[in-house]
């Protein structure tokens, strides 16, 4: 078959890009290696982890806050197989949704591993059988896999990655999470809420290293206080051994002393690595970067081979589903001759712990490094009427604005529904709003979003009303 566009990979970058191509009248096909569409995000990432986060948060509230709310429960217990089954059902619904969308947009789909024969010919291999299709344009959207450490072999039973952590059919007594980033903290939260004693071992001095330092600090405080999670910062993991149902992790602290951690499971969440296996990139003369295995692309996400593009986790930039989606649309529109634009500084980062953490734009650390003069406005949720009502008083919103022009340069929040609230900040910054603009825009009362308005008032001229 001859296509205008063939997309390899059906994750959020690939499937969104394919639909946009089809909308623009391009004859489009998608190649997916797995049985279900949706890639990491829908199958073993964003969606299933949110399903478990929501379930475990319900349990945690039932166990810890219902009584204060005036609700008594007897015989509260976790039904882990049901929790996992519901998660699987959510995944199944979502992946089936993509199948429907492909059909609706007349996109052909192929199951198998796509590899380059030449820049316009793709071979699809599935169970030893293969066929070839041709395309004027190819979009590589093969995503990423959990990074593994050479001294810490994954056995997928006791030493596991985020993928296996979504299918543990019991509530472990103890769990070790290696890596204090987004994935480690979200999965650690799931089990900590269900009653597991979770220990996080992090090489760096702070959690959520890339985000504004204030956020990681506050999150660490809250997770320790409300979930009893333990944090071992500045610790270097040196190895792990499995004995029956027990895993022992060894690490050295900043003083060089060796420590041992025992648990039933150890989740290795030290990041993700671009995935290009089976693409046969060498057949079109492409080489991936030595560090991180990413495919080099130009500003228009085109590789060194004209007509071959790459998007999402497999190229430079943050490994985020929404970044991949926007890149999918970007490339589709470029192929159709349009001139879209992505503002990479305004891709929000979100962590679905509770409180949630969300962030967009420059951090205080980045502004200091740039030597830019800025103003800060911060508002704590403990001063928010809405947060008091729901007992979600941890966290704050921080607005950073240009000292001279008042333009908002960064917004960093930790608190209830921060993941949803960050959207307002992104819109504001896309239109280059000033802190005063936000302070002058009416926010419904009582809502969590008032905290953003109050922080903006603070940044404008230190005139927050409610603190």
């Amino acid at each position, binding site marked *: 078959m001859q296509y205008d566009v063939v997309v390899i990979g059906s994750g959020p970058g690939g499937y969104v890009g394919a639909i946009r191509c089809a909308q623009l009248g391009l004859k489009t096909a998608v190649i997916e290696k797995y049985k279900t569409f949706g890639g990491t995000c829908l199958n073993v990432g964003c969606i299933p982890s949110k399903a478990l986060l929501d379930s475990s948060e319900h349990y945690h509230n039932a166990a810890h806050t219902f009584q204060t709310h005036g609700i008594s429960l007897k015989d509260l217990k976790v039904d882990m197989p049901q929790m996992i089954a519901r998660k699987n059902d959510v995944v199944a619904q979502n992946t089936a949704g993509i199948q429907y969308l492909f059909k609706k947009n007349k996109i052909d789909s192929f199951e198998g591993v796509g590899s380059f024969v030449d820049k316009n010919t793709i071979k699809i291999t599935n169970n030893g059988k293969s066929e070839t299709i041709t395309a*004027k344009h190819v979009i590589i959207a093969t995503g990423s896999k959990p990074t593994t450490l050479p001294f810490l072999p994954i056995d997928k039973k006791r030493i596991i990655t985020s993928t296996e952590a979504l299918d543990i059919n019991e509530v472990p007594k103890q769990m070790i999470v290696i890596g204090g980033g987004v994935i480690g903290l979200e999965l650690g939260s799931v089990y900590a809420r269900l009653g597991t004693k979770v220990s996080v071992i992090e090489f760096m001095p702070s959690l959520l290293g890339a985000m504004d330092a204030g956020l990681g600090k506050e999150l660490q405080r809250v997770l320790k206080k409300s979930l009893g999670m333990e944090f071992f910062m500045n610790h270097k993991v040196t190895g792990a051994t499995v004995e029956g149902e027990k895993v022992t992790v060894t690490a050295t602290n900043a003083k060089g002393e060796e420590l041992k951690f025992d648990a039933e499971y150890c989740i290795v969440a030290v990041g993700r690595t671009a995935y290009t296996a089976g693409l046969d990139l060498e057949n079109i003369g492409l080489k991936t970067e030595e560090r991180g295995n990413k495919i080099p692309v130009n500003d228009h996400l*085109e590789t060194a081979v004209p*007509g071959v593009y790459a998007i999402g986790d497999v190229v430079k930039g943050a490994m985020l589903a929404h970044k991949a989606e926007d890149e999918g649309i970007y490339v589709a529109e470029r192929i159709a001759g349009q001139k879209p634009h992505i503002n990479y500084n305004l891709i929000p980062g979100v962590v679905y712990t509770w409180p949630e953490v969300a962030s967009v734009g420059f951090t205080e650390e980045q502004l200091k490094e740039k030597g830019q003069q800025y103003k800060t406005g911060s508002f704590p949720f403990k001063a928010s009427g809405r947060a008091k009502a729901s007992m979600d008083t941890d966290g704050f919103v921080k607005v950073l604005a240009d000292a001279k022009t008042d333009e908002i340069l960064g917004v960093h929040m930790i608190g209830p529904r921060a993941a949803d609230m960050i959207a307002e900040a992104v819109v504001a910054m896309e239109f280059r709003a000033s802190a005063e*603009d936000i302070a002058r825009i009416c926010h419904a009362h009582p809502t969590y979003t008032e905290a953003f308005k109050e922080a903006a008032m603070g940044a404008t001229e230190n005139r927050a009303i409610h603190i």
Partner: protein
Amino acid sequence: MSIEIKVPPVGESITEVVLSRWVKNDGEAVEMDEVIAELESDKATFELTAEQAGTLKIVAAEGDTLAIGAVVCQIEDGGAAAPKAAEEAAPAAQKPAADQAAAPVPERTGDSYATGTPSPSAGKILAEKGVDPASVKGTGVDGRITKEDAVSAQKAAQPAAKVEAPKAAVAAPVAGSRNERKEKMSPLRKTVAKRLVTVKNETAMLTTFNEVNMKPVMDLRGKYKDQFKEKYGVGLGFMSFFTKAVCEALKDFPSVNARIDGESVVFNDFADISIAVSAPKGLVVPVIRNAESMSLAQIEKTVIELATKARDSKLTIEEMTGGTFTITNGGVFGSMMSTPIINAPQSAILGMHNIIERPVAEKGEVVIRPMMYLALSYDHRIIDGRESVGFLVRVKQLLEDPARLLLGI
């Protein structure tokens, strides 16, 4: 008490206008003399102002065609101030007096750091049109460029429309959109269309060409432009030389400056020179009155003034009516040669074009000179070939030896 605001009589030949935009909203408080709406006739845009202070009650809708004297809106006594205060008083208690800013809110000034920032969709549209956002006037908050601004933005009338290097990789429009857009013609466009066809049908129009060596004018300009600017505050452009030369030539060939009126020919002892200007809503042709008795500096000043007004759609009907001869400059767009259409009821139009270095023969030798082709379209009914060609030759002589302008020879 309420008063009705009607479409004012805006010009002799105008019987109807289109309500292009409401500046104020229904129910909004307006001050006396404040602009409340924009009206558009087939010749110009007008602002409708409030005749008294009060509350606006809209009668006509945007896009409506209204006869002169038709009711546009009513203004009712009593601004919005009173009822609003009452509204506020009632449900206040909820929140501590949060919003009562003590100091008056400082008025937003026109320019801010965000002026000219295109919204994400506007940015994409401008990039695809190849329009520099800096050339677009944003109507959003603080001059931000909205999607609508981007949709209506025109490519700037600057020379050298940047040609994009052919894209190496993407064999582009295989699958481009094949969408058609239907837009209503503006009244101005409709009039232009009607008049152009009328002129083609009702005159005996033809075009004669010549070429002019621009070196003498350019030398003169190069020599004096700084002093000229210092003394008069305007740059010394080509337009003043051409206008002056045309006025001089019109004296020698009065029929080129005449028009047919029924059975008679009307000759003018003055030269009102219309200049064609590309404006946002289309071509407009403001007039330099009595150009024959103006100095070069006065002409330059008038040209700048009229062109600025045209760009801002601020030209009045009077400024566009009359004119005995027209100059149009397709050279700014890069035109090498063209046959302009007469601006009726005038009888002739001079077309200027781009200046290109060409090899020419001078005293038996090939030399490189900055050359411009000139075109004169004329109505053969009252202008003979001898006169039209003679006129154009005269303009050429005056420009190639500007001293003649001084001496009148």
